[in-house]
């Protein structure tokens, strides 16, 4: 199949799908006998990427594939297309989401331990309805609480290709500048266990 047609098909598919497509879904557009090898598909993607330079949109790699998206710096104008302003999320929701994103998989109890307040069922449900988080298992303790993790859709929505593209977690030192070594060390692991120490003092 001629490379220009391959490119047009891929380009058209990205715009028609209105969601990210990965190499597998792109390959599935072609019948077996005409299917281009993967490197040819990747070459076409690269070409499409290059062609967007200086345009109002770009081909962006996110978690579940590539998608055409409108350039970020155009948002001030583009947002006028809609009367409704994009929704703002509550701090409770964002903190819960951040904890799940950085510490996954973890239970509701783990979240409550860090935030110091009960996590409302509404927030968990809202995050699940958006398909941003999912139950990935259950912790093997009494009650078998659900373990939550973020999904590909979460990454897609926030324009990320992988979890490691999240902004790095900051080390908070301002509170204690002369903290004993042990204290700082205990923060790197990122395991929930360390927080459980509070039980000792209860």
């Amino acid at each position: 199949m001629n490379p220009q047609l391959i490119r047009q098909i891929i380009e058209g598919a990205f715009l028609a799908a209105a969601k990210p497509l990965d190499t597998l879904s792109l390959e599935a557009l072609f019948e077996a006998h005409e299917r281009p090898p993967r490197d040819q598909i990747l070459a076409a993607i690269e070409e499409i990427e290059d062609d967007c330079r200086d345009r109002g949109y770009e081909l962006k790699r996110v978690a579940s594939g590539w998608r055409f998206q409108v350039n970020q710096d155009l948002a001030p104008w583009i947002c006028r297309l809609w009367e409704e302003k994009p929704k703002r999320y509550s701090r409770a929701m964002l903190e819960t989401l951040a904890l799940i994103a950085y510490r996954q998989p973890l239970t509701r109890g783990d979240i409550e331990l860090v935030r110091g307040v009960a996590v409302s069922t509404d927030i968990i449900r809202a995050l699940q309805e958006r398909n941003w988080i999912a139950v990935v298992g259950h912790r093997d303790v009494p009650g078998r609480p659900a373990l939550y993790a973020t999904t590909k859709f979460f990454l897609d929505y926030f324009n990320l290709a992988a979890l490691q593209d999240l902004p790095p977690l900051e080390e908070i030192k301002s509170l204690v500048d002369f903290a004993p070594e042990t204290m700082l060390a205990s923060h790197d692991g990122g395991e929930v266990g360390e927080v459980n120490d509070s039980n000792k003092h209860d």
Partner: protein
Amino acid sequence: MIESESLSRQKQANVTDSRAYSQPQQSEMPFAVIQGEALSVMPKDLYIPPRALEIILEAFEGPLDLLLYFIKRQNLDILDIDVAAITRQYMNYIQLMREIQLELAADYLVMAAILAEIKTQMLLPRHSSDFYEEEDPRLELIKRLQEYERFKRAAEDVDKLPRLGRDTYQARAEVTYRDNRKSYPEVKINQLLDAFSGVLKRAEMFKSHQVSAEALSVRERMSHILDKLVGKTFVRFEGLFAFHEGKAGVVVTFLALMELIKESLIDIVQTEPFDSIHLVAKKS
């Protein structure tokens, strides 16, 4: 109830890390907006309208957030903090809270208990040589505060990530043709047999229904005849026989007709003796 000393300190305090409180408060940090008026300092007088307190409460995400606020506002390192003072301040606060929003107060009460516990532990005499062996009672709280602040900032970072529908938009183009081609699952004949034998096994159809009595060819012919009769008024009896099928075919058709009559699916009509016979699908 809120100590005036700490309030005036709050006023002067430089915010150590303005970023941590950039939302929802700014550097001059109105505490809350009540009836259009920014409240940047906790009211000194005892009377705080309950509604106002609710709004203040909403600005905090829980006891850790509130405590973090107290500490940051006073620009103090927690290890230097007079735990007694902050406990007092904290207790005053939750006392107000309890009056209006009990269920929220529970989390705060736990924190008050933790503060009180730390306070008592601090009061106990300790030998300086023990310092490194025995954990400072405040350490656990500091860890929790640090951990909470970390995620508080992480939440702000997540909020700043370019978001679909706010900072960037999914590009799409219209597709003017859409034949929803559907592809069907494949079925193998042995799957069908397997399913059927399952039914037989379960229902023991052999005994109750005596299916085996009728050859399949008869049942198929029954379907064909019904198909021919549907939508027509009368069909001539002879018209149903295809003589090229030979004797066997004629017999099958005849048996099918008998079966259809037995199951009252068709009627036979003959207006006069020796007249031609017609068949008609039963109507209600």
